[in-house]
């Protein structure tokens, strides 16, 4: 895993050996002074739940190389680190718009017609808005996913009920696809391939439970709208 390499690289710069194991909820880390192996420190810390953020991943990786190559002093590394961590995320309304457009395009990939794509656009817009609002309030992520899948599929299902367009079933099916946890799924398989089997399985279970929640949300709105098959 990249994180282990990066952290070890930074530790090495300051003359320490480092061992690290990462779990779903906590990190266990030991650092050992290279010159005096008796001096060591082990700590277990909780992991703060963070949203996926590739900018941080990319810049921390750069920071670790900079530390290694330029031998930056410790204070500077710390201040750089705080700067990277506290960066603002992208404007959330722009993200909302782009995600809605993306899911509409996704509907098009499944051969949905233009009306279906319009429905999916608005359904995703509402669903993702709900997801952002609930995430801001720090509500349990499973509840968040179920609710936003429910909202999105309810809106997309309207097209099915009033018989507009030729492919309403594709609109209904792809309206919840923006919630599918793609990156955790890829990460989990990657972890298993690289031998971090426990972490990989934990992530896989996490992703699967999110998908179950999405299915529950979809199923609830199908029950309400009285739809039998997808």
């Amino acid at each position: 895993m990249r994180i282990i390499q990066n952290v070890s690289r930074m530790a090495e710069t300051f003359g320490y050996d480092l061992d690290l194991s990462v779990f779903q909820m906590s990190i266990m880390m030991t650092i050992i002074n290279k010159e005096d192996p008796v001096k060591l420190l082990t700590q277990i810390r909780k992991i703060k739940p963070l949203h996926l953020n590739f900018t941080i991943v990319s810049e921390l990786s750069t920071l670790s190389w900079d530390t290694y190559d330029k031998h930056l002093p410790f204070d500077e590394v710390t201040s750089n680190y705080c700067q990277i961590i506290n960066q603002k995320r992208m404007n959330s309304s722009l993200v909302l718009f782009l995600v809605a457009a993306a899911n509409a395009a996704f509907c098009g990939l499944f051969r949905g017609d233009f009306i279906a794509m319009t429905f999916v656009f608005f359904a995703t817009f509402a669903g993702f808005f709900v997801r952002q609002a609930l995430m801001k309030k720090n509500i349990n992520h499973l509840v968040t996913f179920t609710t936003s899948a429910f909202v999105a599929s309810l809106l997309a299902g309207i097209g099915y009920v009033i018989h507009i367009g030729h492919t309403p079933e594709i609109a209904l099916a792809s309206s919840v696809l923006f919630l599918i946890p793609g990156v955790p799924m890829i990460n989990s398989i990657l972890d298993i391939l690289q031998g971090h089997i426990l972490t990989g399985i934990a992530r896989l279970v996490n992703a699967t439970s999110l998908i179950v929640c999405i299915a529950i949300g979809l199923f609830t709105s199908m029950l309400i709208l009285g739809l039998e098959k997808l």
Partner: protein
Amino acid sequence: MTYEMIRLLLIDGLMAAIAAIGFAVISNPPRKAIFVSAILAALGHSLRFFLIKSGLDISLSTFVAATFIGLLSIVFARIIHCPAEVFSFPSLLPMIPGMFAYRTILSVIRFMQNSDVIKSQQFMMDFFHNGMTTLFILLALVVGVSLPILFFPKLSFSVTRKY
């Protein structure tokens, strides 16, 4: 290759690019990586579309497309100094078997609700078909995209190094 085929390929690529941009911004990547992932997604997805149309099965063509994305992503990673995963993962997202994944769950729920034997067998079949397809596509995606990283580990882990 006919004119119609080329038109379909272009539309497919464009859709995949829009989808990749949208799904990428959820995970807040650096600005320059967004465009790269759109290009990679367009190329990869239309390659997969072409392979499926020419008769390959979905997981094998996904594997080829993912390997292609993985190779290109290492090249781009050298150019813009970002870890390859930052834009290769979002460009895989349009190929994630989301539809199959929740059809699997839906068929489990239907199986549970149903008491008719013949229908239950049908749902069991659906469950296995969709579940296996999900699993194989996922494996194909991940193995495909990480093969280049596993082959050139030095290259892909030092792209953010500036010296």
